[in-house]
């Protein structure tokens, strides 16, 4: 881990956010910056990949490397990039529509692979940028322009799915508490392997139910419970299903023993792929020719 001193000012992008006043995304941006400062991560050492949606504009709003890609598609881009440049910290920032909807299949498979990637999902339980339709995480019965009589689908349970799919770090944060969130993000970045941080992020325009107040009344911090052990998968599974009057945030589960994807690929043992000399030695290619004779 880098140990340089990094300031919030250094991370200031020349681009001003276009988010609505009061948007939960500000808290996430702030927490991401704080986490970088906390870990001394310099702008050129980090690569952000985002999808599409309000929150996915984040790479423009932070001074670091970024790639604002397609709806639901940052996860495979991040994996390709990580395998080609595994010295760099790769952070995916996308939304609930991206990751729990259109990119659901990609998400399922990144968890099976365990690359050393941090994944922040901005979960506002509604479609913001397309103006108010229900999301995969909207609560059953949620009324929106595309569910005028209320949704009839169960919401996705990101924490339970992540546990079932083998994610090695599973956490949930709240953008209304950037300090706590920054801490979770820093832990996620430090975790060796795939880290999911699902973030409650109120949409002040379209989601009139899951507001800051709604979350504040319900959420409590797992890390404040001394009896809770995030290495206990069964306990995590139980907490993953807690919803209603009390909703836990914090680190649900952590598995520090699983090897990362990169560690298991022989080509990456010596140095990052982008630094490999090309082309291969002519003798190797000539030997390959002989195999065809």
């Amino acid at each position, binding site marked *: 881990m880098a140990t340089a001193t990094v300031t919030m000012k250094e991370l200031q992008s*020349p681009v001003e956010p276009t988010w609505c006043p009061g948007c939960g995304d500000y808290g996430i941006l702030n927490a991401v910056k704080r986490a970088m400062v906390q870990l001394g991560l310099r702008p050129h050492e980090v690569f952000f990949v985002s999808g599409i949606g309000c929150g996915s504009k984040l790479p423009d709003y932070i001074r670091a490397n970024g790639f604002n*890609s397609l709806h639901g598609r940052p996860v495979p881009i991040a994996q390709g990039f990580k395998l080609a*440049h595994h010295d760099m910290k790769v952070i995916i920032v996308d939304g609930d529509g991206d990751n729990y909807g259109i990119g659901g299949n990609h998400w399922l498979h990144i968890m099976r692979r365990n690359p050393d990637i941090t994944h922040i999902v901005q979960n506002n339980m509604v479609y913001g940028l397309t103006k108010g339709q229900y999301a995969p995480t909207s609560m059953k019965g949620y009324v929106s322009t595309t569910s005028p009589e209320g949704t009839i689908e169960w919401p996705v349970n990101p924490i339970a799915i992540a546990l079932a799919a083998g994610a090695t770090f599973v956490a949930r944060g709240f953008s209304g508490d950037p300090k706590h969130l920054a801490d979770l993000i820093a832990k996620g970045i430090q975790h060796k392997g795939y880290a999911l941080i699902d973030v409650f992020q109120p949409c002040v325009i379209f989601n009139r139910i899951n507001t800051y107040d709604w979350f504040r009344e319900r959420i409590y911090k797992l890390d404040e419970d001394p009896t809770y052990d995030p290495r206990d998968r069964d306990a995590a599974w139980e907490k993953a299903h807690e919803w209603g009057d009390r909703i836990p945030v914090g680190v649900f589960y952590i598995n520090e023993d699983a090897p990362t994807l990169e560690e298991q690929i022989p*080509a990456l043992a010596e140095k990052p792929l982008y630094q490999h000399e090309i*082309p291969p030695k002519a003798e190797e*290619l000539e030997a390959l020719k002989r195999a065809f004779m």
Partner: protein
Amino acid sequence: MIKNDVAFKLGGEAGQGVESSGMGFAKAIARAGLYIFGVQDYMSRIRGGHNWYQVRVAERQLYSHEPHIQLLIAFDERTVSEHLHEVVEGGGVLYDDTFKVDADAIKAHGAIPMPMPLLTIAEEVGGNKLMMNTAAVAAAAGIMEFDLSYIEQVIRDNFGRRKGSDIADRNIRVADAAYEEARKRYAHLFEWKLEAVPNAPQRMVINGNQALGFGALAAGCKFVASYPMTPASSLFEFMCAQARRFGIVVRQTEDEISGLLHCIGAAHAGVRAFACTSGGGFSLMVESLSLAGSTETPVVIVLAQRPGPATGLPTRTGQEDLLFALHAGHGEFPRAVVAPGTIEQCFYEMARAFNLAEKYQMPVIVFTDNFLANSIRAVEPEAFDVQKVAREIDRGKLILPHEHGKIEQAVTNGYRRYEFTEDGISLRIPPGHPKAIYSVAGEEHLPEGFIDWEETAENRNRMMQKRMRKMTVAAHADMRLPEFYGPDDAEVTLVCWGSSYGPVLEAVDTLNRNGMRANMLHFVDIHPLDWDRVADILGSCRSWVAVEGNYTGQLARWIRMNTGLKADGVIARYDGRPLNPTYIIEHLNRVLTRV
């Protein structure tokens, strides 16, 4: 006696080893210094059905198969009924003597029935009826009086080189017995013979997919991500098999969408990457293709065609995706489309695709199809000039993040990923250097890479013009015009692209031997092109007929769209079977009588 000019076909059910036997036999013949052309046909099932492997042999380089054969080697009864009509007068039909085969029908056709106790030999000599295919191949060699030691070498390669390998020894004993028996019974009746060419150089026996993979390795490709799909799977598997030896990363992804996006991620980090798929998988990649276009990310996609629509004929061939690939993606963006026609071209064009992709910072689509992907030829190892490929590696305006000095020099005034330039190509520094921190976006962006929130018409126009300028530059600087084969001043020019090269080339040779002046105009590069010059070339042809593996004459349409010139006819094959010279000539006559 006809020496070293023969075609034979092995046929049987999937799972009987038709392909491995055919491939093994072809390899043995190539080691004897002969040229071969092998093509296979199989069905979309794991067992049963009907598969065949056809091999043509000559002392000169071959580029195609033909519909007629001299020897049919039947692993089952169905093979005889399905293919007897392809056997020429005086040819032979070799089959197990327990098969219910109508020998009189074979005789009535003018061929020689050649029943053999193949199963019995396999069981009694080898102790395993599965060795029947060894017996069949050896019997065929006996009938053609081909030196059995070449077959034995291949058996040793397949079953164990070391002395005392029981399975190899038993197969060799089966081969010996079947060879002698078949030679004794039928060699004097069969006029086609195979004889080793003394002191012939060693040649590679390789198919189109392997040649593409070889080209990628030689060009320094370090990353492959794909989802298996026929007929691209064997290319993907080839890369997997070479991963450790060449220190490359190969990933089987959850779908084709992810495959291309993995490549975009790796390429964004400065690594040469490709994905391979067929039309169905390419359909899924279209969204990401557009992203590569917008972000100017160099990626290579091998599009191995098979007939559609939808899953179509999954194990057969076609050239149906040309116009799709040329237009795939929302919005307009630069891309290159190339279609190698031979195994040698597969090697060089694949390598060149990475140069085009990096030089112009755009996606490049390399076409192949089931026919080219799976057909094998014996090629001189010198034809794969790895040093030449190495010398020609062109990474364009790329500076890698660890090349510190170069970066300091290049970015004195800050780094703009999409700087407006005269040739439309901007300096590319993958993330990782403190002097080159930037964010890119698929959304229309500013020269710095940030999304253009104001969406100004001026920036949009300049950015579009910058990107599209690359096409004009590439068309003049790098893309190759179609090439003629055959005599000048032909009465008719056969215009084709990609894998039609071989069948059309041989059709042209035959036409000229038979007194008709014909030539071929073959397109490898299809987009972008200097269309004024293409128009001049076509304008100089007396008449031209497109030969294509599709219904609508897609190349002819593309040419008309870009030059206004209309083909005098189209020979279109869309039954899933590859073109061959006889088919082309027959249909040419029909097209010409219509003209």
